[in-house]
């Protein structure tokens, strides 16, 4: 996707807001926009799980909204304490820990995207169900629907030829600590390993292969036997692979103390040592801040956690920049929900809904996506309404970062979801040669009362799909799928209820998007 169509995507969110989508930043002025030429298999993703539900309202502070100060009399961050970045975004001061590459600086340098209002329809306020919804990529609040595996597990297990009988030379995913997350599970088995200390893993993992062939899968006993057997084999095989990378790798940045920071340090060292894993999963708990989340000096549990987050990611980015792998790493935070906008009586906040997500790395299109939460229009539980379906960033990762197709995204998410455009698509010389670039999509009339025309200039003869998505990114309808000849093209759209939409023209696998408003 090109810059032009990206701006079009976010323009819809920009209408009438002060904090705009796509704040123009240094990094994506055309002059120094990096063109990714690395082979696909060099790229990796860091997933930072913030368990407990991070308080988005006390992360990116809506300092201009008097309502914020009235609903949070004891725990609001005063305007003068918030860190103003480019006079547009105000961050919790804890996001700029002393002597580190903090979030404000990363944002100014074009390495941080802030997604406001990330969430999903019918928010579930259970930590566990909502975590499952986030990790599985399936939004189902029906407790009868079991969520058993993860969107990344499904994607990669489909990509690995012969998995799980044939294991790839490097683990596809590495989780630091704990038992393997649902995120990395698939119907075919786990696509990753969990480890805490590479040295210990090496010492204990050597020779653990059970030397036994798998059992028939036709019994429960056989299935569990095979599961254990595969883990044993992964211990044996990957303990030396990880150790090699750990020994070869290094850290050149300084890392502070703290469990999360050390996890990021380990990830940097493994990447630096050449580990070819596609996913690293790191974890921080404690965000369930019902009680005493911060005092009047902005100290307390929540600031501590934000400080850890910024310090860990900041040091990691410095390391990545200094060692030259910053272009092939992006990271994203996931947290099961935000907090209730109104503070509770214990100087804390109860479970809420939509919140803030961070995406970091050289490959992001830095900026703020979406608007500051509307604190006068809550959902039925008194929670912030979501602006973006959480899977929009997943679609970004799959299509724009891992190079998957729209069809693969649909297979993994069992739904058609439009990427948000937070990540830059890989562009190669071949793309330009074969006409894989965005087009200028025009819609008229806009706003429309019932019918509108979508027009563009078709650059090459190619299969073209025209679709309409809801503004949160979910698929509404497909208008056309056909091979079109070069030249001006036009498709009519009708029968939409009032609301904001995104019209998407996909040519040769490249999407171009324009907003449409229907006012009936």
């Amino acid at each position, binding site marked *: 996707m090109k810059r032009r169509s990206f701006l079009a995507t976010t323009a819809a969110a920009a209408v009438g807001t002060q904090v705009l989508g796509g704040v123009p930043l240094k990094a994506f002025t055309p002059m120094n926009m990096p063109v990714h030429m690395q082979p696909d298999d060099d790229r990796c993703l860091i997933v930072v799980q913030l*368990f407990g539900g991070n308080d988005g309202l006390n992360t990116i502070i809506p300092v201009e909204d008097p309502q914020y100060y009235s609903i949070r009399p004891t725990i609001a961050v005063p305007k003068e304490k918030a860190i103003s970045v480019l006079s547009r975004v105000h961050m919790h001061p804890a996001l700029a820990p002393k002597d580190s590459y903090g979030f404000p600086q990363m944002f100014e340098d074009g390495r941080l995207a802030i997604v406001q209002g990330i969430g999903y329809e019918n928010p*579930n*306020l*259970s*930590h*566990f*169900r909502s975590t499952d919804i986030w990790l599985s990529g399936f939004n189902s*609040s*029906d*407790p009868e629907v*079991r969520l*058993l595996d993860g969107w990344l597990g499904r994607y990669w297990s489909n990509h690995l030829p012969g998995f799980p009988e044939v294991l790839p030379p490097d683990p596809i995913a590495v989780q630091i600590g*704990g*038992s*393997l997350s649902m995120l990395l599970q698939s119907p075919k088995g786990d696509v990753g*390993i*969990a*480890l805490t200390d590479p040295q210990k*893993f090496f010492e*204990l*993992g050597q020779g*653990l292969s*059970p*030397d*036994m*062939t*798998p*059992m*028939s899968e*036709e*019994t*429960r*006993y*056989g*299935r*569990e*036997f*095979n*599961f*254990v*057997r595969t*883990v*044993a084999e*992964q*211990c044996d095989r*990957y*303990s030396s692979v990880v150790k090699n990378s750990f020994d070869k790798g290094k850290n050149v940045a300084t890392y502070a103390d703290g469990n999360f920071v050390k996890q990021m340090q380990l990830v940097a060292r493994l990447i630096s040592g050449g580990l070819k894993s596609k996913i690293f999963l790191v974890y921080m*708990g*404690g965000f*369930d801040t*019902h*009680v005493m989340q911060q005092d009047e000096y902005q100290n307390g*549990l929540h600031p501590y956690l934000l400080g850890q987050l910024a310090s860990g990611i900041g040091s990691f980015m410095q390391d990545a920049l200094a060692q030259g792998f910053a272009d092939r790493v992006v990271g994203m935070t996931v947290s099961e929900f935000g907090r209730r906008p109104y503070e*509770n*009586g*214990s100087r*804390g906040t*109860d*479970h809420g809904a939509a919140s803030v997500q961070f995406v970091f790395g050289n490959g992001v299109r830095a900026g703020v996506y979406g608007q500051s939460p509307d604190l006068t229009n809550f959902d039925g*539980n008194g929670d912030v309404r979501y602006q973006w379906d959480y899977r929009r960033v997943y679609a970004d990762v799959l299509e724009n970062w891992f190079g998957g197709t729209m069809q693969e995204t649909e297979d993994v998410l069992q739904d058609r979801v439009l990427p948000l455009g937070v990540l830059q698509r890989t562009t190669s010389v071949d793309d330009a040669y074969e006409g894989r670039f965005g087009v200028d999509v025009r819609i008229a009339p806009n706003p429309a009362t019932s019918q509108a025309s979508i027009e563009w200039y078709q650059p090459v003869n190619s299969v073209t799909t025209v679709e309409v998505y809801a503004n949160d990114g979910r698929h509404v309808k497909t208008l056309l799928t056909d091979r079109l000849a070069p030249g001006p093209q036009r498709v009519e759209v009708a029968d939409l209820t009032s609301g904001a939409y995104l019209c998407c023209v996909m040519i040769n696998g490249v999407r171009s998007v324009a907003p449409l408003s229907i006012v009936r």
Partner: protein
Amino acid sequence: MKRRELFNSIAQSSRRQPTPFEIKLQVDGGIEEHTDPLTLDDVLHLYRRLSYSVSMPDAQKHVGKTARQVVTELLGPKDPPAPLRDVNFVKWRDPATGQMVEYTENPEGADLQAAFAIRSWWGTNYRRLRAWHTFEALRDPLTVERLAGFWVGHWTTEFSFDDQYSQPHTLYNQYLTFRKDRLGNFRDMALDVTLDHAMLFYLGGWLNEVGRPNENFARELLELFTTGIGWYTEGDVQQAARVLTGWKVARFNDQPAPKGIYNTWFDARKHDTGAKEFMGVTIPARTPDNNTEFQVRNEEVRELVNIIFRARPDAVSRFIAGKVYMYFVYSSAGEMDRQFVADLAKAFKDSDFDLRELFLRLFISKHFFDPALRGAQIKTPMEYVIGLLKQLRFDDTEVAPIDSAGWTEMMDQALFDPPNVAGWPGYRSWISTNTYPRRREFARKMIDTLTDARAMQLIKEMPDYEDVTKFVQNIVRYMLPLEVNETRLAYYKSTLLEGQPDYTWDEKLKQPASAARSLRALLKTIAVAPDFQLC
């Protein structure tokens, strides 16, 4: 042919091993009672699931009895026998009086050194608590600690969370409540836990006051402890939180403690006296006159619990039956036998939520004894650690230096300190590249410490131990959940005999050092097999 070659030659002959004996995917047995006399394998299966394994002599005592007889015996009396040992908490020197006491001053506001000392004291006593628990579990002839341990994972309370600690004394008191309530009425257990001191602290109930509600416990009471998700509205959560206002904890000697330290008390001023509307039932407003601990406990808190059970009996019985099923029978959420769980839930509901009935009906059912479910459960760290110590027949002196709870912690089960309020996720999450190496290390170390005398005892406890083939078969059925195929049996026998012919077993038995060495080699080989992780 060397053992390894023998093994490899057969291992490579087919891509998948055939299943050792006739078991299938289909479970035929339902809730109806299993009335056949129990075989040795049945008894071993029962003990692996309902208890923490069993020694061979104890298992043999039950062969030929009915499931109902054995399960009734193992569940034991409603009131549990007293623990075998005292927890032996370290006492604290009260700086004011110089007396040794069971509580401390408040670390908040204390100087750094004192605060550090208090936290260390909690840490020490936390380790005493869990060491005590593992010992009781190992030596429990019934299932008291096993079932209480199950409830610890259900009504979770973490020792350490955020930057706070639950005091070990309160975790101990809570554990005694689980012991007492383990086979009683689930409704009573729900009421006891709702006002339990450790729970009030852990889920913020002590901060839940009129005008400043804290929904944390109210939500989990429904979502995780009784109905499961989807059976209540957000409004129900908010109303339940109002009902539960006013209950306080007494953690330190500088705090009010009308009922004594570590005991819950009621602060009438902090209770919301307004009317509440919960699950369609009105709990009427009260006046200052009847805003007393006794009345609020009975007319509001007990009523709240009663309403849940009255308004959502099917949800509660299904949720608890499902949880028990996954813990004791088969943990794969995707494959829970819905019909059986529905039947079990109905029996539970029909008994008015009697937990003894729930456990009895489960463990005497044909379903439980169905071959299709044997060996399908992944051992929890407690099952793995305590089970092995029991199987190896270690005596008190031998287990004394073993930090069992430290081992389970390395296997991701820190006792009394689950990862979060949902408890341990269980099932396959127990086995990862993080924990599996620790499991292997534990088994190796334990087997290495098996003395010659203990090894000889173990050998002689196996039926027909003088016949080497039968001995291997019996030690395999003792250590592993299911029979193994001929290839593996031959491999295990050749490991035991170091590749020598069968008749050498006789001679080995006459030389304890040699027999013990062989047994250790065999046990270590068995412990390497994936099914050693199953039960």
